[in-house]
C-alpha cells in the first residue's frame, strides 16, 4: 500500500534573515495527516521560525516546502495559528472574538455563528459567549484563543508555546483538553514548547532541534497509545520517555553552550 502524500514536507530547507547566519539549516522532514509534532530545543534553534515557514509568513532561503501539496502561501487558508498570548480583542465579546477569522474571510453570518458555537462548545465555554476577555481567567482566555483557531476547521494547527504563561495545573488541564478536542476534530499539529513533559504527553513525534544553526538533531517517537489522559502521566513508559528526552535535550543544550 503506497503511503498517503505528506501533509507537510520540508526538503533541505535553509532559512536566514538578510545576510545573517542561518537560523535553520538543511532541514528535511515529512509530516503525515494526523501527526502531532512537538518542536523542542534551546532558544535560538528556530522553532518559531519553522512555524512561520509552514504558515507562509516567512519564506525559505533555500529548499522546498510543501503544505497540503501546495506552496505555503497557497495553503494558508488550511491552517490556524495559536500564539503564546491569547491576543483577544478586548472590545469584542468572547463570541465575536471567536468569529473574527471567519468575519475577516467574509463568511456568511449563519456559517459564522455555527462555527463559533461549535468551537466554543469544544473548549467548554459555550456559556461564556457574552463575556468580555477581561472577565475571563488566563486559562479561559487561552481556551477562547484555541476556539478562535478551531472555528476555521483547520487542517493544520500551529501552536507557538500556547501554554507557556499558564500555571502547571491549568497547563495540564488544557493539554488533556487539546487531545480530547483532537478526537472530535482531526488536525495535524505543530507544537512549540519548552516543556518536555508537555511535549511527550501531547505528541506522537517529537523533534529535538539544536541551535546555531537550527538543525533537526533527533526525532523521538512517542508510541504511547491515544487517548491519553491524566493517568498517562503516571505510567512508567511516559516517565521514562520524559527522562530520556530531557537527557537528550540537555546534551543538545550543552553543545549549544
Amino acid at each position, binding site marked *: 500500500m503506497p503511503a498517503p502524500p505528506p501533509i507537510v514536507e520540508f526538503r533541505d530547507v535553509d532559512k536566514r534573515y538578510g545576510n545573517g547566519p542561518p537560523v535553520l539549516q538543511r532541514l528535511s522532514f515529512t509530516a503525515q495527516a494526523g501527526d502531532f509534532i512537538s518542536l523542542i530545543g534551546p532558544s535560538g534553534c528556530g522553532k518559531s521560525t519553522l512555524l512561520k515557514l509552514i504558515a507562509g509568513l516567512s519564506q525559505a532561503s533555500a529548499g522546498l516546502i510543501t503544505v497540503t501539496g501546495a506552496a505555503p502561501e497557497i495553503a*494558508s487558508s488550511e491552517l490556524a495559528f495559536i500564539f503564546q498570548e491569547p491576543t483577544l*480583542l478586548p*472590545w469584542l465579546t468572547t463570541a465575536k472574538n471567536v468569529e473574527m477569522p471567519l*468575519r475577516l474571510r467574509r463568511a456568511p453570518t449563519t456559517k459564522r455563528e455555527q462555527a463559533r458555537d461549535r468551537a466554543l462548545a469544544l473548549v467548554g465555554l459555550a456559556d461564556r459567549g457574552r463575556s*468580555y*476577555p*477581561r472577565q475571563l481567567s488566563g486559562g479561559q482566555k487561552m481556551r477562547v484563543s484555541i476556539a478562535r483557531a478551531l472555528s476555521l476547521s483547520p487542517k493544520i494547527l500551529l501552536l507557538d508555546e500556547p501554554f507557556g504563561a499558564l500555571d502547571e495545573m491549568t497547563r495540564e488541564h488544557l493539554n488533556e483538553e487539546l487531545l480530547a478536542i483532537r478526537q472530535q476534530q482531526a488536525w495535524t499539529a505543530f507544537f512549540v514548547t519548552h516543556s518536555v513533559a508537555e511535549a511527550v504527553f501531547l505528541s506522537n513525534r517529537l523533534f529535538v532541534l539544536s541551535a546555531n544553526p537550527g538543525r533537526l538533531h533527533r526525532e523521538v517517537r512517542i508510541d504511547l497509545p491515544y487517548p491519553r489522559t491524566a493517568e498517562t502521566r503516571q505510567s512508567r513508559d511516559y516517565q521514562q520517555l520524559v527522562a530520556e528526552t530531557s537527557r537528550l535535550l540537555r546534551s543538545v543544550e550543552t553543545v549549544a553552550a
Partner: protein
Amino acid sequence: MPRKLFNFLLPAATGALFIAAWYAVCFSLNEDNRFLLPTPGQVLGAFSDNRGVLARATLNTAEGALLGFGLAATVSFTLALGLSLSSLVRVSLYPYLMILQMTPVIVFAPILVLWVGPGLKSVTIITFFICFFPLVVNTTQGLISTDRNFTDLFKMYRATKAQEIFLLRVPAALPYFFTGLRIAATLAPIGALVGDYTAGSSAGDGGGLGFQAIIYSSQAKYPALFATAAVTCVLGFVFVAAVLALSWLALHKWHDSFERTDL
C-alpha cells in the same frame, strides 16, 4: 457609607469656608473700593436680574462651542486616519501641525471677522482651532500604537487593509480618541467665549457670553460680569459631563479605565 458622607461633607465645608472668606474680603475693603469685588449675594442677584440675557447668551455660546467641537472631532478623526496610514504623510505634516498649534488663533480673530463676518461663524472657527490639536494628536497616537500581536494576528488571517483599519485600529484607538475629546470638551466653551469676546456680534440673536462680558465690563456691571463667568463655568461642566457619559457608553464594557475597583 461614612466615607461617602465624608466625600460630600468635606468639599461642602471647603465651599462654605471659601464663601465666608470672600465676604470677609469684600467687607474689609473701604467703601470707595467695594465695587471692585461684588459679594456672592450681589453676584446671585445680578444672575437673577440678567437671567434672560444670560440664558440667550449661553445658548449662543453653547451653539458655537458645540459646532466647533463637533467639527473638530470629525475633521481631526479623518485627518488622524490619513496620518496613521502613512509615515511619509505623518513626517511631512507633523511639524506644521505643531506650528499651527502654537499659533494663537485669537490673533487672527480680527481678520477672521473680515473673512467670514462676526458672530457664529467666527466663533465656530476659533473654537474649532482650539479643540482641533489635542484631538488630532491623541487620535493619531492611538491609531498607530495598535498592539503588534493584534496586527500580526490580522496579517495571519489575511485581513485586508480596510479590515485592519476599521475592525482593529479604529476600535483600539477609541480610548485615545476619548482622551482627546475630554481635553477638547474643557477647551470648547472657553474657546467659544474667547472667540465671542473678540469676534462676537450683537446681530441676529445677539452675542454670546464673551460679547456680554464686554458689555457688562464697559458698563461697570461687575456683579453681572462675575455671573457671566459662573455661567461659562457651568457650560464647561456640561460639556465635560457629556463627553464622560459618551466615553462611558463606548468603553465601560471592555476598557480597564472603567474597571470597578470598589467591588
